[in-house]
């Protein structure tokens, strides 16, 4: 599964970030409207530090962005990143369609390797 329009490491960060229920929920919430860390922490009965860690993972995956507003840090969703993530599934299909095409090319040629 090598998607080359998007670097592998980036794809992996997306998958990892979305593999956790709390992080998925945070993404849903901040896609709807910006939240501060403390607002998020109230929603999950979780320490601010724990929420910060989740937000950092999401930020590294490009799913959310942090911005400072006065003394507060707000977390906002990045819809483009989510759309890109969904796109990966379609891309996997395309990767295999392309591979099948190339297989067809190889198979259409005279058998190779038989003659020394």
């Amino acid at each position, binding site marked *: 599964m090598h998607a080359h329009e998007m670097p592998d490491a980036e794809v992996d960060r997306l998958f990892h970030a979305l593999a956790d229920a709390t992080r998925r929920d945070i993404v849903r919430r901040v896609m709807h409207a910006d939240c501060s860390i403390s607002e998020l922490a109230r929603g999950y009965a979780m320490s601010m530090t724990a929420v910060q860690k989740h937000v950092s993972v999401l930020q590294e995956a490009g799913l959310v962005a942090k911005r400072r507003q006065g003394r507060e840090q707000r977390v906002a969703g990045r819809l483009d990143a989510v759309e890109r993530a969904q796109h990966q599934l379609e891309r996997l299909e395309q990767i295999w369609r392309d591979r099948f095409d190339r*297989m067809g090319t190889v*198979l259409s040629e005279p058998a190779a390797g038989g003659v020394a």
Partner: protein
Amino acid sequence: MTVTDVHKDPQTRTMTITAEFDVPVERAWQLWSDPRQLERWWGPPTYPATFVEHDLRPGGLVTYFMTGPGGDRSRGLWHVREVQPPRLLVVEDAFADDEGRQSEQMPVTLMRVELADREGGGTRVRIASIFPSVEAMEQLIEMGMEEGMRLAMGQMDAILVD
């Protein structure tokens, strides 16, 4: 070559794609068993693959690298789980670091290749890619689709009302 079926199933974390070729199963199998043929189709023209080790036996290791336009290389490896020539190959496809060691952070995809005789001649090739985590895949689908987005927004509203 004709792609006859594509199926993406979040429940089983599987994407299955089937294509038919006008060659016998034994010939199609060489696409996998011969590393020189394998590297002609595994990577796209812009990232051609070079297979280094190619031990297609249960427990065997297959290693490869793909070379980008700028000379950059990405490495991968297969742990071979099952082989029944010329009909079945099951491997774990993993990413590797610059030294060729399997990456701990990268997800491992299970790839199952099945070759079957097509009625009237030819081969049906079925590839199943199984994702490492059901949550990741479900969520990718759920969150990306417009309907899924609206659903997610509804769930979010419910949280705020609580």
